[in-house]
């Protein structure tokens, strides 16, 4: 056979095949067409969402503080429940879950029509019963659903935070949230929620007109949320929490105290990273997973257990404020100038009494304090001599009263971060305040009730107010974190950090996003200040005259620690104890701020707490809080 004939034969066969194909197409589309159209119209689609596992929260070394585990849950897909049997399904569910049908019906209503939601709290027996009686539970399935677990319980609770049901407010803030899901409410769980959430998966079904699904078409797996790695170190944190609890316990035994609350923060002065952060009393975030009764919730709320006092506790800073007065004095060259006290070398004699003339109304006022003998700026810091720092305030008042430099002290305080939030990556931080004439003028207009009648009738802002600022009293308020950030700026070359508790985000695909603490302000300290400030901070601890000498007496490396005590007074309350310490003092890496609310004297109650933490950081054995006293 010739090629042409063979090709012609092939062409014939091919043509027959194509002819058959077109004929078949005709049959399917034209002859059977109406049948297929009817079928296509009877199909409905439905989708059911699957919850993404929330990402882990881990400490700087990988210790897991929050994770997700898969637990069996009753998942209701309303789109798969024929409307006429829904009421029956609710009854059946209520029966098997031993819950009130009204309660289950409310869950259905809350979730909305066509939605998918999880009914929590299912035992293996219930799961088995539902799985083996499928016909009684259309649209109900037992699926593994992620549940939040906090393996360390209350440990680091205020930083880790907790989750809760999505509220209307949450939806306003983030419309991507699943209204039937959970959302971070506090701590890292809250402020890093968008990283932790992950992406829900979905299953798309085809559903026959009677609502029965036929054939799973497409499954988009849920994407687990990112892991959030914190800057905090579980080892440091453990010491911090233990020391804080022990400190409060110790302070309870002291005279004129009533410590119920306290806060400690350990900040890295060189990076702005928070290494430890504890607030007392605390709570167990797991309770939000299992559910709290109204009474339990209210009891915790009233004790301020949910408040992170490191960023939300506002206290008069007391004598810890003096370090900022010190900085103002050195940088501005303002020293006590009362002629009667002046000694040839610039120091003054503290007799325990200060008599100031004509501060406001021309009368003479008398202030008292323990006598410290001959003090200069440096020894006054170590001994926390009120008289000396009052004299600095009076010098400022005398020189600048009524001028634009009247607030020079407050300006220094604000430049290191007081009076405004630090910008830490946690919610609910409070700003505190550094009072001045402008604040009182503002109050006079906005909330006159805050201002006493004497002020309204006399002068709004007087020299005595500035004296109060100088010793961190009056209307001065600050959080422990603000004080830690401010002290860090005094010893780290002037960097005012915007602190962070999160180091990095590790995506479920392994991608890493690093976070760094921001810098809110950079101060150029004078050489004179830089040369002496660190040494002067050791004066509170090393010499016997130091206010924290006793608290640190048992610590080996106490000569490497600097700090300042504070005893804040509040009307109608026992004193609150402050201590802010730094180490190693030559080039400080750690700044620790401790507050024991109503805990007594700073040197007696707060300093031993910080000392325990420093002992841990220096690798020493930790002495009991009361050691040295």
């Amino acid at each position: 056979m010739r090629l042409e004939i063979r090709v012609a034969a092939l062409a014939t066969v091919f043509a027959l095949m194509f002819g058959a194909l077109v004929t078949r197409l005709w049959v399917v589309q034209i002859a059977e067409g109406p049948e297929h159209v009817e079928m296509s119209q009877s199909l409905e689609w439905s989708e059911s969402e699957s919850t993404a596992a929330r990402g882990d929260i881990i400490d700087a070394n990988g210790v897991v503080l929050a994770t997700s585990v898969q637990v069996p849950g009753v998942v209701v897909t309303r789109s798969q429940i024929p409307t006429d049997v829904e009421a029956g399904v609710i009854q059946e569910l209520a029966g098997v879950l031993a819950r009130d049908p009204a309660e289950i019906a409310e869950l259905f209503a809350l979730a909305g029509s066509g939605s998918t939601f999880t009914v929590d709290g299912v035992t293996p027996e219930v799961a088995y019963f539902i799985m083996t009686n499928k016909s009684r539970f259309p649209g109900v399935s037992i699926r593994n659903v992620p549940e939040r677990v906090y393996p360390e319980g209350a440990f680091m609770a205020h930083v880790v935070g907790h989750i809760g049901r999505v509220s209307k407010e949450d939806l306003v803030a983030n419309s991507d949230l699943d209204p039937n899901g959970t959302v971070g409410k506090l701590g890292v769980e809250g402020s890093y929620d968008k990283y932790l959430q992950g992406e829900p998966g979905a299953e798309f079904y085809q559903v026959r007109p009677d609502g029965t699904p036929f054939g799973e078409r497409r499954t988009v797996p849920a994407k687990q949320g990112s892991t959030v790695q914190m800057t905090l170190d579980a080892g440091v944190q453990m010491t911090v929490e233990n020391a804080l609890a022990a400190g409060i316990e110790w302070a309870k035994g002291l005279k004129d105290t009533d410590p119920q609350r306290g806060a400690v923060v350990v900040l890295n002065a060189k990076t702005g990273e928070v290494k430890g952060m504890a607030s007392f009393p605390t709570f167990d975030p797991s309770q939000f997973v299992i559910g709290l009764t109204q009474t339990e919730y209210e009891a915790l709320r009233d004790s301020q257990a949910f408040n992170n006092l490191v960023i939300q506790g506002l206290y008069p800073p007391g004598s810890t404020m003096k370090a900022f007065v010190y900085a103002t004095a050195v940088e501005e060259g303002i020293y006590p100038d009362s002629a009667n006290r002046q000694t040839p070398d610039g120091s003054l004699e503290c007799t325990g009494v200060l008599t100031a003339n004509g501060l406001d109304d021309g009368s003479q006022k008398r202030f008292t304090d323990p006598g410290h003998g001959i003090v200069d700026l440096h020894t006054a810091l170590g001994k926390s001599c009120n008289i000396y720092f009052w004299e600095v305030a009076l010098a400022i008042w005398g020189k600048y009263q009524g001028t634009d430099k009247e607030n020079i002290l407050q300006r220094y305080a604000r430049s290191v971060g007081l009076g405004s939030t630090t910008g830490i990556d946690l919610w609910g931080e409070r700003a505190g305040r550094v009072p001045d004439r402008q604040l009182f003028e503002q109050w006079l207009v906005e909330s006159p009730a805050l201002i006493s009648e004497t002020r309204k009738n006399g002068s709004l802002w007087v020299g005595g107010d500035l004296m109060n600022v100088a010793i961190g009293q009056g209307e001065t308020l600050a959080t422990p974190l603000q004080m830690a950030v401010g002290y860090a700026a005094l010893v780290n070359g002037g960097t005012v950090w915007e602190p962070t508790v999160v180091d990095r985000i590790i995506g479920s695909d392994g991608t890493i996003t690093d976070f760094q603490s921001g810098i809110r302000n950079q101060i150029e300290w004078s050489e004179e200040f830089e040369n002496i400030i660190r040494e002067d901070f050791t004066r509170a601890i090393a010499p016997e005259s130091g206010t924290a000498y006793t608290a640190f007496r048992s610590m080996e490396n106490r000569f490497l620690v600097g700090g300042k005590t504070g005893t804040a007074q509040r009307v109608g309350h026992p004193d609150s104890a402050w201590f802010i310490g730094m180490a190693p003092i030559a080039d400080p890496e750690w700044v620790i701020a401790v507050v024991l609310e109503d805990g007594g004297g700073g040197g007696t109650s707060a300093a031993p707490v910080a000392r325990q933490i420093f002992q841990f950081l220096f690798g020493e054995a930790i002495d009991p809080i009361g050691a040295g006293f």
Partner: protein
Amino acid sequence: MALFMESKTTSEQEGAKSTPIDILLLLSMILLISFGILMVYSASRELDGSRVMERQVVFAGIGLGLFLLLSWMDYREFRLFSPVVYAVTIFMLAIVFAQAKVAGTNRWLSLPGGFNLQPSEFAKLSVILLLAAVLAGTFDDEDLTWRRIGAALLMLALPGVLIVLQPDLGTALAFGFVTIVVLFAAGATIWQLSGLFSLAGLGIWIIFKYELLRDYQLARLTSFLDPAADKLGDGYNVLNSLTTIGSGQLFGRGLFNGALTERSFVPEQETDFIFTAVGEQLGFVGGALVIIAYALIILRLLRIATSASDRFGSLIAVGVGGLFVFHVVVNVGMTLAVMPVTGIPLPFMSAGGSSMLAMCMALGVAHSVWRHRDLKPARSKS
């Protein structure tokens, strides 16, 4: 039939003066590619936006470039370099086994840049070139001896085994179909063909006797007989496919108006089942026009076969023609539940780079045969 017999005389009269490009072939190809891009977009836009379509446009561009490049090459080079073609084909088919399995098969070759190459698509063209080279013989009027047929089958054995091991049943069947078509065109006698069919029958008997087919392969081959038998298994695609195409009726529901296509009712609707998008949106009219466009390409390929300057060229054109017939009939037949689901893409239309490039290259080589038809053939007589 008349069309291609007549065109032979026309072109002989025009001789060397005629346009060097086969306009009808090129136009049909471009038409199908453009139409395919539109269909891929309509089938993937809901889930992927324009991403899949954009990739398809890039592959179409590269494919057309390869088509032109091969058109301008002298196809006889492939005969000289057939050992190289053979070696490269075997190498590509072999290295997929060095990679991790995807969906239970070793079908894909991961390339840098996120591209996945499917060597079996290109192997189809290689097999045609090698079959043509072996079966053409030294002189165009030589009879086809058993010896030559034996050589061709021996040559096919290695790539065939590699394909079956992947396993890629569709490609293996394509090899078989193309081999029979090329053998017939090469002048196999009735006795030779029936001998080969007996051999194939024996082979199939052995496969069933020793259960060499994997369960899913057997299921796919038989499910089309009654797609309703297994609604969620292999018949599920086909049932949905029938509903989708059938609901298009005469004129279709209109472009971008296919309710089922929009919801990805048919799995793989932008790749293997792209014809369902045509059927639903453009109806019988659109579907028939697509089939006619393929018929035109195949007619032109057969025309090229009869006007080629040598038997090597003829067999290439016939082989490529056979390949297109196989792909179109099996793919469209699969969507219409008259062919098994074997993962055979619709040439130029199914989304996917390897198929697009391989089909463009196959047409390019055939077109080279057309462009070089006036070269003096090596003939011992006449």
